[in-house]
């Protein structure tokens, strides 16, 4: 009798512990739901305000915050490579670019500047679309998105996806980070294409560039303005750190999230910082060194790829045993070839020169 009671008590305690664990799991799932829901709602609300807001400066600030939340969203999707890229581009480049563009729009006296948007003359018809037409277009677009979503949800998931195939072949790629393996080995032709796109974007920006006086964020120092006291120490602290983090991300790309693109973006952000504070000044034409860095990544990547035709049996195939070394070499040069066009695009000039003080 007593033994039976004791057994009951033990099993009761065990059940109690099991329910406790289940509740913990349920609470965790609930919390993740709350987090993801808040994140999604925040992103949608911010995106709407960025586009529909009437105040330009508010939209710029909201877009900067949108970049922060977007990085958290990539983190929640377990995509740290994308979160790193979003952080480097969003915090290092886009915010400064938008604020500099805004500065050119308002001019130096706080009134509308020389680059203010053109307002239509008084007699002209309003440039707005009638409400019914906007609603009609929105309804059509909504139907299209819903239709595509409906078809996509109904699709059978494929048995063999490219991602699974890449993970199976990871050991042969020479690196341990699957993203780097895909970017620099399995699908390196796409990566060459992307670097070419960046270079072409720089060339296109050169075609429409303004005179050097108005390029990019302009000079820091005017006759009447002195540099704030803390800028010097801040740069002295951040510049070496940024170089260190660039090297770290480049090195990390081989075995954990990171790589040439993130590293290049951090280096470009450092150039943005120096350009904003007048330590780098615009120059009309790139020097020979800058030209070689601009095309260096594409040239080296293509040369190694073509050499693979003779040494490894296929174009863009690495000779066996050389994968890791060649990938690291290509990534190092790519980092510079990505950072420089990004920096020059921000600067709005063909080249950069150091400010002599």
């Amino acid at each position, binding site marked *: 009798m007593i033994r039976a009671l004791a057994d009951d008590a033990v099993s009761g305690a065990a059940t109690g512990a099991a329910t406790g664990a289940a509740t913990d799991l349920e609470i965790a799932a609930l919390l993740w739901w709350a987090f993801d829901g*808040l994140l999604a709602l925040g992103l949608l609300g911010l995106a709407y*305000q960025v586009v529909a807001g009437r105040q330009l400066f508010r939209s710029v600030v909201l877009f900067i915050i949108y970049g*922060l939340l977007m990085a*958290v969203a990539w983190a929640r999707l377990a995509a740290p490579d994308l979160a790193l890229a979003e*952080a480097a581009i969003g915090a290092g480049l886009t915010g400064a670019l938008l604020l500099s563009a805004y500065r050119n729009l308002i001019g130096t006296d706080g009134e509308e500047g020389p680059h203010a948007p053109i307002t239509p003359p008084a007699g002209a018809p309003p440039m707005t679309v009638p409400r019914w037409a906007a609603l009609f277009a929105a309804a059509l677009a909504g139907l299209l998105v819903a239709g595509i979503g409906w078809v996509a949800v109904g699709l059978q998931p494929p048995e063999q996806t490219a991602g699974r195939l890449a993970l199976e072949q990871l050991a042969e790629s020479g690196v341990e980070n699957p993203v780097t393996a895909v970017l620099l080995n399995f699908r390196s032709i796409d990566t060459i294409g992307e670097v070419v796109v960046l270079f072409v974007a720089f060339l296109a920006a050169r075609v429409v560039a303004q005179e050097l006086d108005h390029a990019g964020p302009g000079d820091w120092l005017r006759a009447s303005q002195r540099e704030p006291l803390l800028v010097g120490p801040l740069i002295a602290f951040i510049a070496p750190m940024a170089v260190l983090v660039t090297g770290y991300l480049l090195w990390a790309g081989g075995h954990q999230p*990171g790589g040439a693109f993130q590293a290049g973006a951090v280096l470009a*952000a450092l150039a943005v910082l120096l350009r904003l504070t007048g330590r780098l000044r615009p120059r009309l034409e790139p020097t020979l060194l800058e030209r070689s860095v601009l095309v260096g990544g594409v040239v080296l990547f293509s040369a190694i790829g073509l050499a693979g035709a003779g040494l490894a049996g296929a174009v863009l195939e690495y000779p066996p045993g050389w994968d890791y070394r060649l990938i690291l070499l290509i990534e190092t040069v790519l980092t510079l070839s990505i950072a420089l066009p990004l920096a020059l695009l921000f600067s709005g000039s063909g080249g950069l020169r150091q400010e002599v003080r």
Partner: protein
Amino acid sequence: MTLLYTGLAVFLLLNLLVGLMRVYFGPTAADRMLAALLFGTTTVAVLLLLAEAMALSALRDVALLFTLLAAVVALAFTRLPRRFKGR
């Protein structure tokens, strides 16, 4: 412990979303910009909590990047002319 991290992350995110009111209503440009800079710090905290809760150590690197690059936007903001309407 994971539960605590997740709960704190939700709390911080909620804080950020409520704080968006300051960005929305302003009234001055500095109010908006300071709120955005504060949200940068909040995001760093959220990412560090997520790194533990999701057991994804690479998220610490993301937090590191936000910390390193927070000054860029702040410096770009100080380049705006002193007297502007902040619209």
